[in-house]
């Protein structure tokens, strides 16, 4: 075979060019830890990588949302539980005979006072951001004398005015968080109905004696009881009315507790799924994207040997010329 001198020199160059290109590529892969240096290296794999990366980002956000939902629900659950036991204490304190001694009635009235303020405090609970959690969408309220800057406004005065509610009207104002694609979980409740329900079936019109026992306003009832219990003007029917109002409030609150428990369960379920899928996605992404270090290093060494061979072949043959032997 006839070969021209330029090709003869270049044949080693072609080998060196290819080996150097491969070495540089392997170096980049090892340095970046990624097999895919640009989408064009493997469009099919890159399409999967992008899909997985996007899915991981979405799921990571859902995982963050789930943590957030869990926090909000747990916080609310704790407050509602406190509220429940306060309502039970109030019920115990009101389960006395109207004919019991003045001192006992006074003691109960005093203890009711602390339960009352505890309840008002709980109803006006703020979260870690300083937002009211039971005011519906009205998470902050302007400080004006009229509204008292809180969702539930009631001071102890024995008066018959209704409890003032500044929050979003029932049943609106509950907030939801998206925990999975298209799936939202309610993470707050409107407690207006617990303290001042408008549900007609709960209003006992038959027991019309006294001022407030049949009223659907729990705080007004408690306020009235605290004022009148030491005085001794309350009848058994009055006391029954208070207890009934408390029972109804407890029943309403229990519904909220069941809902919270259900929501917490749902979040836990979804969280399990999200975590598993996130792990799947990350594993799949790793398999596609991450460079196989061992294989890459072995290939690097092979390529290096080949480049050295090309170099040495060039060095050995470059000086071969017949002119060297002609004197």
């Amino acid at each position, binding site marked *: 075979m006839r070969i021209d*001198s330029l090709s*003869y020199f270049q044949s080693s160059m072609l080998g060196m060019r290819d080996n150097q290109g491969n070495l540089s590529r392997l170096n980049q892969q090892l340095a970046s830890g990624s097999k895919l240096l640009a*989408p064009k290296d493997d469009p099919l794999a*890159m399409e999967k990588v992008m899909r997985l990366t996007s899915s991981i980002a979405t799921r990571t956000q859902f995982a963050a949302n789930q943590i957030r939902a869990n926090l909000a629900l747990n916080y609310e659950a704790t407050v509602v539980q406190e509220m429940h036991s306060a309502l039970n204490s109030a019920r115990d304190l009101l389960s006395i005979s109207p004919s019991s001694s003045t001192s006992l009635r006074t003691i109960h009235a005093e203890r009711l006072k602390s339960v009352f303020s505890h309840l008002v405090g709980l109803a006006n609970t703020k979260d870690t951001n300083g937002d009211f959690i039971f005011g519906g969408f009205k998470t902050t309220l302007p400080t004006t004398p009229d509204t008292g800057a809180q969702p539930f406004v009631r001071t102890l005065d024995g008066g018959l005015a209704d409890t003032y509610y500044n929050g*979003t009207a029932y049943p609106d*104002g509950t*907030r939801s968080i998206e925990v999975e694609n298209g799936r939202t979980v309610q993470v707050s409740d409107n407690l207006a109905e617990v303290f001042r329900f408008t549900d007609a079936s709960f209003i006992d019109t038959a027991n019309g004696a006294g001022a407030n026992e049949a009223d659907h306003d729990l705080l007004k009832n408690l306020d009235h009881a605290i004022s009148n219990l030491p005085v001794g003007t309350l009848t058994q029917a009055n006391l029954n009315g208070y207890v009934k109002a408390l029972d109804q409030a407890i029943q309403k609150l229990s519904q909220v507790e069941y809902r919270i428990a259900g929501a917490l369960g749902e979040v836990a379920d979804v969280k399990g799924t999200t975590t598993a899928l996130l792990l799947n996605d990350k594993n799949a992404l790793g398999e596609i994207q991450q460079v196989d270090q061992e294989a890459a290093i072995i290939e690097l060494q092979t390529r290096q040997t080949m480049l050295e061979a090309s170099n040495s072949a060039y060095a050995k043959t470059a000086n071969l010329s017949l002119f060297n032997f002609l004197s």
Partner: protein
Amino acid sequence: MSISSLSVALSGLNAAQAGIRTTQHNISNINTSGYRRQEVAYTTPSAQFTSSGYFGSGTAIESVRQIYSQFLDNAVLQNQGQLSYYETYSAQASQIDSMLGDSNSGLSKAISKFFSASSEVANDPTSTAARQNLLSMGKNLAGRINTLDTQMQGMLDASNTAVTSMTQEINVLTTGIASLNASIAKLEGGSGQTANDLRDQRDALVANLNKLVQVTQVQQPDGEISLYIGEGQTLVQGKYAYSVSAVTDSNDSSLKQAVLNIGGMSLPLSGTQIKGGELAGLLAQRDEVLLPAMSDVTAMAFALSSEINAIHRNGLQQDAATAGGNFFTPAQEQVGGASGWLSLGTSSSGSRIANDNYSASWDGSAFTVVRESDGLSTTVSAGEEVVMDGVAQGFSLYPHTTFVPVAGSGTWNLNFKSLAASMSMILGNTTEVAAAASTANGAGDNRNALALAALRTSRVLNNQQSTFEQAYQQTVTRTANNASNADISVSAYTTLVDESTSSQQGLSGVNLDEEAINLVRFQQAYQASAKAMSVASAIFDELLGVVR
């Protein structure tokens, strides 16, 4: 007899000298591109008749000829044209590929982060930090789109400049080839000898021209060559070269088009006419990779702005009283009491979105679309591509599924023009983020932020088939496929060029060892002829001595 024996020896001396000279010429041109090795063709002149028989009269030089094969030369040209095509294509497409696919310059992360930030606002609508984060991510998203568009616009400008400079370069080369044709025809005319070195020069020019635009060459009997491009359009015919020039594309004023000027007519050189060479690679890449990517980014900017603005305007700001405004530079504007919004559909023809503004109205069954620049109007049904004056505009329209447009309620301005380059976030203050639904009565309402976050998984692009992220992935994958195919072709044609060049050079290239042997051979032939001459001279002297 002796005199003639001197002349026989002299012919040998001359022949050896010619051989040495040609060998020297070969050695000198070892590095000359396009050089084909030459050799002297010897012949024996007619013999002298005597009664004793025919006596040879030495040697004669018939010609100096080039060693080549037209077949091998053409194979190199063909492969080189394709290699140049794919190299240009690959270099350009790779730039776009890595720009779109890179996690820092691409859009994937920016889109994903924007919707995650919306989610965080939904999680905590009263948090200033979450709102600030959404504003930052919105700004980042708009900025990424601007950067991508600017980069690609820069590449488009560069490709327009390249079309102009390549056409100029083609003209320089074709003129050179035509004038060499003239010289060769003049020198060779009737002599029967070939002007080897001029032919080499011409072939070198053809090789350079072929890298720019693939040509087919046809040898003419008088030594001239004709060059054709594409489907047989003449570029060079003998002494005449037809000029090519870069003109503004009649369908798209932002593009330069190469045309061949023949007899007062301009023939556009598109991908169907020219199939090899850098110019073709550049144009193919522009049409298949760059322009579709730019169109996709415009569609993305339009859809992001339209969809996000529609939801954002539907909500209330942090004061739970003021309506949310536009989040981004509006891609759509309601005019004359228009109610509801339109959705962007794809182009069925694969055309790119024209860089123009339109206005559209909806009568409940069809859109009437008017182009801003020239007032042309057309009526299309939902999902039917808008075509103006026979030219597809690269988009179709649908009534929005959530914010259903009210028939006959007004018009919508569709601002495609420079949208991707100029898109920016309009909101300046965290309180302006409309996280609350329109019925909200407090800052704690997160329903609109939830709706915004849900856009992440809504299929709003590609005729309601793809989410934003999926649509972007399709753009990246398409670009990657084009770049990858070009890369594969580059390596294939590199091998083919190497192989065909090696075969061609194997025949026509200079081998120094061979020339060394030739040098020795001719030197010895020279020495032998010189000896023959001295013998002839001695015989003559002897003869003179006898007479004396």
